[in-house]
């Protein structure tokens, strides 16, 4: 096994364990801390995939800003260890349906991927060209995917305005 493969297994197992912690832990603080760990290990996998930009943004935005605020809110609410008791309800059925649908979609997508050896793992960095570099990412984002990018920006703006309106109403 090459060093990349060893690291992949380390990150992959850790990601799955931490992600399991997010949904299985009783204590909300433990859940949130598991989520932070998941983000970090996921960033490690991004690095192995040669996507340094995504990895840095993952740490900067998710682990850095969003999770800190998340923890902030959770810790100040001083929740008890006991979560809400789940009962059999329409919500539960809807949840199961949603999970199965997403899983099926993912499996379908993965099966369609052409079987090929990973470029990063074959140690042939030259064949990667500028894939994953910020230059390449920026060029694609601001030419080919400009419209979706702007649409998402608009969505975020709407969310910000909405948050301000909601907060103002309560003051």
């Amino acid at each position, binding site marked *: 096994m090459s060093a990349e493969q060893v690291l992949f297994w380390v990150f992959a197992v850790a990601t799955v364990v931490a992600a399991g912690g997010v949904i299985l832990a009783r204590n909300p603080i433990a859940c949130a801390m598991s989520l932070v760990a998941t983000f970090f290990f996921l960033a490690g996998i991004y690095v192995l995939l040669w996507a340094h930009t995504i990895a840095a943004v993952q740490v*900067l935005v998710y682990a850095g*800003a969003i999770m*800190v605020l998340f923890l902030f809110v959770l810790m100040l609410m001083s929740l008890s260890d006991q979560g809400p008791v789940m009962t059999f309800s329409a919500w539960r059925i809807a949840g199961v349906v949603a999970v199965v649908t997403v899983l099926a979609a993912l499996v379908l997508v993965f099966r369609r991927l052409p079987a090929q050896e990973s470029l990063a793992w074959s140690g042939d960095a030259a064949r990667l060209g500028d894939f994953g570099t910020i230059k390449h990412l920026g060029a694609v984002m601001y030419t080919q995917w400009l419209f979706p990018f702007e649409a998402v920006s608009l969505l975020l703006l709407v969310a910000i305005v909405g948050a301000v309106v909601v907060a103002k109403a309560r003051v």
Partner: protein
Amino acid sequence: MTFVLSNPWLHGLVFGAVLVSVLMALVAFITWFERKLAGRIQSRLGPTMVGPFGLLQPIADAVKAMQKDFIVPKDADRFLFWLAPPLTIAFALATAAVIPFSKDVLAANLDVGVLYALAFSGLLAFPTWVAGWASNNKYALLGGMRMVAQGISYEIPMVMAALVPVTLAGTLSMQGIVEYQVASGWIIATPVGAAAGLLFLTTALAEGNRIPFDIPEAESELVAGPTTEYNAIGWSIFAASEYAHSVITAAIVSALFLGGWDGWWNLPPLLWMVAKTGFVFLIVTWVRWSLLRFRSDQLMALCWKYLVPGALLLVLIAGIQVSVRG
């Protein structure tokens, strides 16, 4: 040597180990430097007893801290209380990986180096908040809250100030920005670069929780903020990571704005980088012992009313400059 340099894994391991060791030794020495300088500013002598000029004082301090019993408060969250100090020092030291000390002395030449450095230095608010909450002490909790508010607010003008050298150099790699400065002059020499450098240093002081922005630990109000309940080696690690963060921030300022390892008279580039870092750290320390602490609301007002719009304006000017240059 060439074998080590050609293998990226060995290269990272060796450089990382050397960098961390040197930084930790430097941090110990720098506490002595700061205490001496603070002594001068306040007309006292600083450490004099241990070793020549008190130079061995940091070692004595470290030995003392290690011998003490590490006490975890009864009502604290045990696991998080233990976790916070190592996380703090890890995040502080991880930032150093992308700092170019000369043309070939750097641990990792990432093409998103600036982004990486900002991500990890911004993470410092996270373990501080964890420490504050896990202590289960109201002063620690208040300090942690202030740290989060301050850290997240000041990250915005900080990232935008860093965007000015990035725009001018046209790259996000730290080494690339230094090489741009070697070719076309230091960024501090341009008006927009000087303003951005000043702004970056100001926000870095707030991110690193240094006076005049050390509101999270404001000892007159909050005992010692998030670290109130920490003693012995736990407290020492927090103190060490604060210094490590300051030194690394000084190195980032030197690389982004002061030309990094560029210099005159054929002196070794490494020496220039160390000298510039030392100079920036001297300014930071001088500010710490000269200015008074801001109030919490003044701090937020300064950030959102002046620094954020100012940083936006600087980014705009830098953009215009680059597009005019063509």
